[in-house]
């Protein structure tokens, strides 16, 4: 091994394709979809579904293929996550809200892949790999009283011994893509519910809830500060019955010392992948704002020089250089977290570092972009103000900045969550 920042040619090409889509399909609709909040990005969905479907088919087939002892195990690191990073960044550059409407299994897919049986993977994930109609998956974790504190969830799943069905009751909020998954496609939602409240985390289990399940009601589509094209809903479970084998992983409630939180830990481990990808999305929005600012400044005759000392820079030049530096720092931390995944190495520390940095950097960068552009930055004629609003979610979801800093602190200090909370 040697330190290298070389993005493989193939990934660069995919990036260019994603950028073409972002520019050609997403950007033209970005303002309209922001203003007309609950409209769907139809163009984007139609354009990207066949691509994603075929990608997902290849992945699923590979996942389910019986191991071939004759096939040599591939040597060295992969590029799966790097490709995702590059794609997420480019599409978020196009429009972060539309990107979040990407028809795919998303976080539900990660959970099913992480803890589902082969049979469950086939049954639940196949839909994302076939058909003309796009489908969405979603994750339902947060509740009104359980935000950062995921172990406080109150949604219950009770087994009806007669029908061998799970009966779900509770409220979930902030479900990205929940409306698309449950009401607008033959999709599904992975719902975290407790089978035994007294067992704490060990009692928390993930359940697959399919579209159009009776008793599963999308109660509200949120109106939001930014990423307005994204579908964020609340869902109420009112005696919703789902088959026994829709529980992912081990149905037994085991004590923690017997690995009882394995399922939960599996879900948490998906953060190791989702956090750098959220960071990548943040970077796309930040880059959009920075590029736009540069473009407008150049039109106004202001360059951004790299070889000029402090005393020869204008206030705006210095700010733009700092914006670029902050984005680059966040980008490199994200690239590292992603690269560790591709190398099959643990990255919880690096994932939280990337997420914390990107969330904060991009919030600042986009707020600054609005300021630099003056009242034109503040005007909804341009997209700068939208990027500021879109960016803001990145320091909140998939763990707030505070939660991620806490994780970083625990790891560098070698403290448990009990010791440092």
């Amino acid at each position: 091994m040697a330190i290298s920042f070389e993005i493989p040619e193939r990934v660069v090409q995919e990036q260019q394709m994603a950028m073409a889509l972002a520019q050609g399909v997403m950007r033209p609709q970005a303002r309209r979809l922001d203003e007309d909040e609950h409209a769907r990005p139809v163009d984007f969905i139609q354009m990207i579904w066949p691509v994603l479907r075929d990608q997902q088919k290849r992945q699923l087939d590979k996942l389910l293929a019986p191991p071939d002892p004759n096939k040599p195990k591939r040597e060295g690191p992969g590029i799966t996550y790097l490709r995702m990073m590059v794609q997420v960044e480019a599409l978020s550059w196009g429009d972060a809200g539309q990107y979040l409407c990407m028809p795919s299994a998303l976080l539900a897919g990660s959970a099913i892949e992480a803890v589902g049986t082969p049979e469950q993977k086939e049954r639940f994930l196949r839909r994302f790999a076939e058909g003309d109609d796009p489908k969405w998956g979603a994750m339902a974790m947060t509740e009104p009283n359980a935000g950062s504190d995921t172990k406080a969830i109150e949604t219950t799943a009770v087994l009806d011994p007669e029908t061998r069905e799970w009966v779900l009751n509770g409220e979930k909020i902030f479900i990205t893509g929940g409306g698309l998954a449950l009401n607008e496609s033959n999709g599904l939602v992975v719902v975290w519910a407790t089978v035994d409240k007294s067992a704490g985390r060990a009692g928390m289990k993930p359940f697959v809830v399919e579209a159009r399940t009776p008793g599963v009601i999308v109660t509200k589509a949120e109106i939001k500060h930014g990423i307005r094209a994204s579908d964020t809903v609340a869902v109420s479970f009112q005696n919703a019955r789902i088959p026994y084998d829709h529980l992912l992983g081990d149905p037994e409630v085991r004590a923690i010392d017997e690995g009882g939180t394995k399922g939960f830990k599996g879900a948490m481990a998906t953060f190791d992948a989702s956090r750098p990808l959220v960071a990548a999305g943040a970077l796309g929005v930040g880059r959009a704002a920075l590029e736009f600012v540069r473009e407008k400044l150049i039109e106004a005759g202001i360059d951004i020089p790299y070889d000029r000392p402090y005393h020869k820079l204008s206030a705006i030049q210095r700010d733009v250089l700092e914006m670029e530096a902050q984005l680059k720092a966040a980008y490199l931390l994200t690239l590292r977290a992603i690269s560790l995944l591709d190398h099959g190495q643990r990255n919880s520390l690096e994932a939280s570092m990337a997420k914390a940095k990107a969330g904060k950097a991009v919030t600042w960068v986009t707020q600054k972009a609005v300021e630099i552009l003056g009242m034109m930055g503040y005007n909804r004629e341009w997209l700068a103000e939208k990027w500021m609003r879109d960016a803001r979610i990145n320091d909140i979801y998939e763990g707030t900045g505070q939660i991620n800093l806490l994780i970083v602190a625990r790891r560098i200090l070698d403290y448990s969550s009990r010791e440092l909370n």
Partner: protein
Amino acid sequence: MVSFTPTDEQRMLVEAIHRYAELDVRPIAHEADEAASIPDAVIRTGWEIGLIPASLPEEYGGFGQREALTGVLAAEELAWGDLAVALKVMAPALVAYPVLMFGTEAQKRDLLPRFCEDYSPMTAALTEPGLFFDPLAMQTTATAEDGQFVLNGAKANVPLAAEAETILVYAREAGGEVGAYLVDRQQAGIAVGEREKLMGIRGLETYPLTLDGVRVDQARRLGGEAGIRFGLIQNYAHVALAALAVGVARASAEYARAYAKQRVQFGVPIATKQAIAFMLAEAAIEVDAARLMVWEAAWKLDQGQEATREATLARQYAANAALTVTDAGVQTLGGYGFIREYPVERWLRNARGFAMFSGLAMV
């Protein structure tokens, strides 16, 4: 003698505005932002507090005396309710106070009594369109011609331009100085453009405006021969915006504080976590610091002292503080901070404007 205690009159005024802000403004603020429209009744109720009449001398129909300190106390409290409402209720001051400061006797007698009647929208046109705006390098010009002045140029971000009868237009004069002209909106050559769509202050109608050979009589040049001291008007405007910024920041700081005390996560209120508690403490400090800077600048103005430095620094500091504090407000609320039904995201959108706003308010 140094003191930080408002007078009893000021305290009563602030209490009256607070009641209005809490009972009339807050309940409609979200809907007004969504609908981009403030109910007339709310503006009228605000107007009836009588801020402007209380600042005008009896000889012009008022019943008091203008003081910047009273003005900033009022502005903070109004903005605590809602910034768009505050700007709209106070918009007549954009004409009233410059006229009071620099108007000829005729101009005062003509205009000031109108501000002691029912609310009628008045406005001023200062900002100009485009990327950068520098009031000292204004592009709109006023040229003397045949005993009149001819105004040419483009303005942006003019509140209430579509309905205001009188617009106070700032323009660069032959000597390079900035003059102000009382223009009738119906006059030939004035075109009000399509309503602007902004990130924040969505309840307030603002418009672009073009002036194409608009002819103004000499008697409508504010201050007549003597003209105005534009720098002084700017100082009052900076202080007004700074005070409004403090109001927005305080609203967010208080809301976040109350939220953090009642929001339980991990078995305890999140306010008991240092990461949140310190953010709230810093917000409290920034709000107080910004307010003190506003007060000092206003006090200097009331003393008749040169206050450009204080007014500018207050404006800059309060604009930054408002952004930082409202951003922390959103962060404190986490996911809820991102939902428009909670006010903190609106305050963040409003707060981001303070660094750019020009000529939108006056104390």
